[in-house]
């Protein structure tokens, strides 16, 4: 890879350089995630005051909102890596997209689950066909579709590229889905239930939420790096450097 030498940014696009880098970085991000989570939970449960309207239930917000953000960001990042893979034909970017998908689906499910548990005491129902909840549900289906498609294709190169196209088509459709659902929601339901009117939040509440959002970023980066490592090993198993990695692992064991 001559071009890999010239651009320092693209240097780590080479799997044999990225693999050890990922292994070195992941524990730091995991540690950051643990510390940020502890700080966020402390802020959320002990510093942030009780909400005047909702009482203590609102404390679900500290995971609900970061999870919802994360699930959307991860889809965007997947689409970004897919576009990079399509344009520059790099192998690593498709692996990154596939390593991101399960975590995105997990956060998507967490957002739905916490939304339902939060909704029961505040709206009186576990599920309402609210625009945000509904588009979140459709996003979960998009994640499932991506995971199912990339797992169903045995040839890894075809899986990479088919997944990339699906992620890009999905990314074009996500805003369309969101706005159509919002439109549909305003036509079919009055403003009786709505998440859009966020309660005015105290600064400490906002702080706790932001810290938790950072924690979920750190967690996502750590777990994705950990997930992409074995993917790289499998894809590159015929190369010499994977042989070296396996031998040193044997020596340690």
């Amino acid at each position, binding site marked *: 890879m001559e071009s890999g030498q010239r651009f320092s940014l693209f240097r780590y696009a080479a799997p044999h350089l990225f693999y050890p880098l990922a292994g070195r970085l992941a524990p730091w991000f995991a540690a950051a995630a643990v510390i940020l989570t502890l700080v966020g939970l402390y802020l959320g449960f002990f510093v942030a005051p009780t909400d005047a309207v909702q009482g203590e239930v609102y404390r679900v917000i500290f995971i609900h909102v970061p999870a919802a953000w994360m699930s959307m960001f991860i889809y965007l990042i997947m689409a970004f890596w897919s576009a990079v893979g*399509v344009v520059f034909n790099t192998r690593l970017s498709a692996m990154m997209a596939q390593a991101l998908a399960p975590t995105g689906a997990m956060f998507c499910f967490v957002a739905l689950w916490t939304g339902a548990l939060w909704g029961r005491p505040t709206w009186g129902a576990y599920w309402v066909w609210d625009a945000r909840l509904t588009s979140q549900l*459709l996003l979960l*289906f*998009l994640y*499932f*579709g991506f995971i*199912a*498609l990339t797992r*169903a*294709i045995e040839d890894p190169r*075809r899986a990479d*590229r*088919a997944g990339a*196209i*699906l992620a*890009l*088509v*999905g990314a*074009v*459709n996500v805003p*369309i*889905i969101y706005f*159509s*659902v919002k*439109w*549909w929601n305003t*036509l079919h339901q009055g403003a009786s239930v709505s998440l859009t009117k966020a309660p005015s939040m105290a600064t400490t509440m906002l702080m706790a939420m932001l810290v938790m959002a950072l924690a979920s970023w750190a967690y996502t980066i750590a777990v994705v790096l950990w997930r992409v490592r074995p993917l790289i090993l499998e894809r590159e198993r015929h190369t010499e450097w994977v042989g070296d990695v396996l031998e040193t692992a044997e020596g340690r064991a």
Partner: protein
Amino acid sequence: MLSVFLEVLRRDLLLAWRNRADVLVTLAFFTIVACLFPFGVGAEPNLLRTIAPGVLWVAALLATLLSLHRVFSQDHADGVLEQLLLSPEPTVLWVLAKVLAHWLTTAVPLIVAAPALALLFDMTQSATEVLILSLLLGTPILSLLGGVGAALTLGLRGGGMLLALLVLPLFVPILIFGAGAVDAYLAGTGATAHLMLLGGGSLGALALAPWACAAALRIAVE
């Protein structure tokens, strides 16, 4: 250039004519799905009139979904697809011809049959007209997006279920605006906005989907 388009279109229509039983089965499926709803929710005329646009749109969606595998699978099996991909003609062009052939052989029969089903649901004539218009503007998106899904799942085990999982979430906006057009007309707010959005969606899909479809086909056949 245009000759490829016409040639592929002619060939696909001819094949569809030879296998016209397939087209009829799709049509029968559409009818049966729509007819199931009164058994499920009761035959109260007011209720039926309210759910009719949604039911007919969902039935059209599912019928399209079941017919999607026809777009490429036969050509994939007998090697025509490979030939077409190797030919110097622009892929997007003949992909478009195939999608158009799919639309003509599945969506158009559904649209022709829809007024009869609308009668079963006691829809008024003017509401039926809006429904037909929404189907005319919306079903091209189904064929175009569905074509991408069909190309992505070409030749995969369990491709049918996978195709449904990939494509149905993307169909939701079309369902919303398609059925919403009739609802808006009945509510007196006018269906123009919905129909324009459907038409705009069709144009957008027409501009983007063939490229994605062509790329997916190249990946599948390689």
